[in-house]
């Protein structure tokens, strides 16, 4: 592909990454106009790379050998993609479209929405990626104790540590396994494995006490949902 790219005029290849972390790092350092991104890579998927880059993401052209769910998502969200083996003519056309996008400053679709749309049916979120102080944290979903909504971000509590991520509560709730995580309150999603007991706290309000002693407020509907799950 590099070979074909080099033959297109006015293109400079500023970097190549061999895994997802490197892709994130290079994209931030080099600030390219366009990034050709494989879906399947070591460490991170292409969707995760895009998600981590957030607003700083360049225009992305996805590459895949075969992935019917991803292709459907690309069509829906008008994202450019190339199929491997990449034909030079298609590559040139994709570069042309990128130039148009750059000229028109077409906004890119949200990485979150795209990765949700591309997820194979029945697959739920398996890990949460968080970029904090220049480091990428990979939080396997089962290690998360609870999630708390703050102003416009979420705080993920993992073994006493807190990680922040720009995301909405309902967005997270729609991706997470509903048999393991319950929204017990407007601002809290709880990993039900961490629940130690439920304390009554006044009329129509309860406290979820976690195994590490943390107390979280619970709404009436949250309490009902939890009851239904744990019986």
């Amino acid at each position, binding site marked *: 592909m590099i070979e074909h790219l080099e033959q297109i005029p006015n293109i400079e290849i500023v970097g190549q990454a061999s895994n997802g972390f490197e892709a994130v790092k290079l994209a931030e350092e080099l600030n390219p106009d366009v990034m050709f991104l494989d*879906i399947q890579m*070591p*460490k991170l*998927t292409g969707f995760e790379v895009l998600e981590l880059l957030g607003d700083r993401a360049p225009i992305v052209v996805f590459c895949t050998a075969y992935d019917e769910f991803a292709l459907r998502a690309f069509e829906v969200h008008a994202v450019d993609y190339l199929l*491997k*083996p990449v034909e030079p003519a298609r590559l040139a056309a994709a570069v042309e479209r990128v130039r148009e996008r750059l000229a028109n400053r077409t906004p890119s679709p949200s990485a979150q929405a795209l990765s949700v749309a591309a997820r*194979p049916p029945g697959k739920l979120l398996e890990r949460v990626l968080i970029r904090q102080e220049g480091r990428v944290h990979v939080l396997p979903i089962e290690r998360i104790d609870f999630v708390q909504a703050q102003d416009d971000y979420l705080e993920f509590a993992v073994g006493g540590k807190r990680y922040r991520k720009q995301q909405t509560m309902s967005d997270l709730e729609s991706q997470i396994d509903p048999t393991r995580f319950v929204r017990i309150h407007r601002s809290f999603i709880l990993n039900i494995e961490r629940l130690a007991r439920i304390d009554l706290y006044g009329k129509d309000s309860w406290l979820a006490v976690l195994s590490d002693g943390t107390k979280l407020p619970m709404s009436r509907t949250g309490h009902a949902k939890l009851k239904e799950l744990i019986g």
Partner: protein
Amino acid sequence: MHPIFVRRSRLILYLSVWIAFGLLLAVVLIFGGQAPAMWSFEFAVPIALALGLQSLSFWYLVQALPPGQVSLWRMTLIWCVAGVGSLAIWLIVAYGWALFLLAPGEDYPDSAMATLPLLIFAGAIGIILAVLGHYLVGAFQRSLDAEKRALELQVLAREAELKSLRAQLDPHFLFNSLNSVAALIGQNPAAARQMCFLMAQFFRKSLTLARERAIPLSEEITLVETFLAIERVRFGERLRTKFDVAEDVRDVAVPPLVLQPLVENAVHHGVAHMLEGGEVCVSARRREGLVEIVVENPCDPDRPPSRGTGVGLSNVRSRIETLAGTRASVDVDARETSFRVSILLPAMNPA
């Protein structure tokens, strides 16, 4: 749940049949029992509805006594007891209702007892019709259920067929290999040509083998070696392989393409995610009268979530079980940094 309560329209229809029965009973009471007209309607319609509600319980008895599975005389006996019991309850309800209808201070007229034989007769007919009706509905429901089950089985069989077809040829592998060929043509035409030969060999072999019910293990090993040779073109030094197959198991029968998906997983979910690569190990030996085949690979604990549908492994499991029955087993040992699938199956020679 009782089928009558599933839809409101059914319940309404059912109750209106019983109201009609009540109206008929009232007419019989007026003309046959010389009862006052107004009283007859007030009396007969509610008790007919009561009999209707009571008869709903027959559904459970119909479920418990499916026709053809219980001896006839036993069924008759049970229904007689149930019918007489039900009739008795109904007569008590009817008596209670009649008392309720009496004006305060009025006594129950002796002549009213004259309607008793008529009530018993009407009640018995009502109950018999209700039981027969329930059997009819039950039979109808059963035939619908049987039809549904047959369809479900058909769908399952189709799905299994589709899955096995898909497992034989992973589109990822095909397109990634073509991609490697396309890349090699410019840099290393000889390697590209070699790759084409390997792919032809692999696809030809897997197509021929897939038609068999069982093949010698050595054939499967050759297929897997070809597969790994193709992948080594793509992964280079990162993909290392090790085969350790005992001489005395090379001829045992295995379902075709049973190791290939496992080795493919080992590459795509294991080694492909390791920056420094890793070794895929395939070994086979006799163990306690059985044959043990193991595919093992290292994996990255931080690998991205798989985008696969996970049919590969379950497919292997079900095919091993169909070939060798309960003596065979497929064990998966998934650790943080390694993945190991071991197949145990009785040593059989291919037919």
